């Protein structure tokens, strides 16, 4: 069974337009017939610039939005089935962009307990899950702190722990690092990677940062509500011009590699990290 499977997923909403003749209604499609499949245990990145529909897609996985056409299944469960809604939300946890607006309680451990409490888990079991989740995100010593005193990266790790305590098979992160400083971004990305590698949790990371996208197993590029590119990071990022056409940047080194190739240097187009670049250039000097 696929972790997430979407077929012809379409989402339309009515937008009110102020015109000279009063307000007019306009139908806007945020997602247009999206087809995709995500395997269990994968680390999938969904890339797109602002307004591309990537956040709308993320909210469909958690049944926060329901498709107007087409279907999306989470572990075989159709999100349109109202009876499965809590099970779907428990299976696919969600972390949002703003760390401040997703923490509910005034004490860290109470906040992490919020999800399991809603699911009706027994108190002793909640206690165990909270301690475990805190340990997984390396925040044990902050159990009794108040969230408003923590840094952005720490708050976001608490939000991840809150989802972990619900024992999900998949975590959807909707631009989790967009409001963080570089240190916070690093903390959160390391936590996400660890969850994927060590705990085997499927990760769906929605982002517009290229250097984060590089770390995924597979990348989907969404533009104007459609999946326009998909493949392994190396396949995607070697197509520099096409990405720029969708309003996306490539990692800086990849762009340098691309420019060097244009100048006639014989180096690979799929260089994604500085280390790779250094390796290639050093060898280049040896061979010529």
């Amino acid at each position, binding site marked *: 069974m696929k972790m997430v499977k979407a077929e012809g997923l379409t989402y339309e909403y009515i937008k009110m337009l102020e015109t000279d003749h009063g307000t007019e209604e306009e139908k806007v499609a945020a997602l247009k017939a999206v087809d995709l499949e995500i395997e269990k245990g994968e680390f999938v990145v969904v890339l797109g610039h602002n307004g591309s529909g990537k956040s709308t897609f993320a*909210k469909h996985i958690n049944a*926060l939005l329901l498709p107007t056409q087409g279907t999306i299944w989470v572990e075989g469960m159709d999100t349109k089935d109202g009876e499965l809604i809590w099970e779907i939300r428990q299976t696919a946890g969600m972390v*949002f962009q703003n760390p401040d607006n997703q923490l*509910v309680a*005034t004490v860290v451990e109470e906040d992490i307990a*919020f*999800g399991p409490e809603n699911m*009706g888990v027994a*108190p002793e079991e909640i206690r165990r899950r909270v301690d475990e989740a805190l340990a997984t995100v390396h925040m044990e010593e902050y159990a009794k702190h108040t969230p*408003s005193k923590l840094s952005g990266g720490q708050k976001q790790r608490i939000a991840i722990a809150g989802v972990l305590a619900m024992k999900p098979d998949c975590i959807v992160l909707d631009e989790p690092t967009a409001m963080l400083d570089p240190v916070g971004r690093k903390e959160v990305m390391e936590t996400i990677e660890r969850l994927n590698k060590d705990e085997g949790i499927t990760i769906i990371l929605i982002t517009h940062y290229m250097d984060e996208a590089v770390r995924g197993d597979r990348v989907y590029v969404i533009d104007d509500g459609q999946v326009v590119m998909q493949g392994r990071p190396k396949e995607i990022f070697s197509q520099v011009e096409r990405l720029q056409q969708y309003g996306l940047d490539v990692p800086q080194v990849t762009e340098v590699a691309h420019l060097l190739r244009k100048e006639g240097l014989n180096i690979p187009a799929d260089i994604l990290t500085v280390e790779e670049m250094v390796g290639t250039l050093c060898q280049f000097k040896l061979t010529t």
Partner: protein
Amino acid sequence: MIRDITIGQFYPVESPIHRLDARVKLTLTFVYIVTLFLINSFVGYLFVIAVLGASIKASKVPLKFMLKGIKGIMVIIIFTAFINLFMTRGEQLLWQWGFLSLTVEGIVLALKMCMRLILLIVGSSLLTLTTTPIQLTDGIEYMLRPFKRFGMPAHEIAMMMTIALRFIPTLLDETDKIMKAQQARGADFDTGSLMQKAKSLIPILVPLFISAFRRAEELAMAMEARCYHGDENRTRMNRMQMHRRDYGAFVVGAIYLVVIIGLRYAGNTFSSLI
């Protein structure tokens, strides 16, 4: 400046009073407030003061903090004292000027009313100083549960209190930021008439409200994503448990109540002793 405002006035020390279950403290505070209106003799007041004094001593909270609350209602206390002193009609007239008259009955009544107000404030301060806001919220939720069948949204009230407590520091930070942004563009909040000062608050309140609504929407979505659906089938990680000390406190409270009622009857019988 604005960040100095503390919410709730919990005083964090370890004491027997701090360790008591919030429900016990809520109940006893309620009993205490009722008894303030039961006593009618100075002996009764002395007894209440003694019991309250002992509780404050046991709570290890400095008396200074307990008396802080009185400052806030000083005006009301003085006003009450004034009305009772000069407006009470009585037989033992001491002094009279126009409609103002000073009687022995007036002095006694004024003293009693002021003590009642002060004891009320200090007693409820003892509750809020020794109980964390979360314990208090949980306690209130539990105590309101019986009224649920009459349509009282006990869980929702508690949830609202929790969220308010969670977001007060966040919104204070935001107010601070907005004020600085407006000041950087030449806004003046400190000078001018009262009217002008009030007007200059509008450019702060509008963005603050807009952002609060946006936050509320996002929070609602985040709560839904974490399976929140009211208190149906909801469990709690920290269950409130009654310990031996809590039952002990109840016994003390019961003895206190009996003594107060006894004093009232005794006072009625031997009213000549006051």
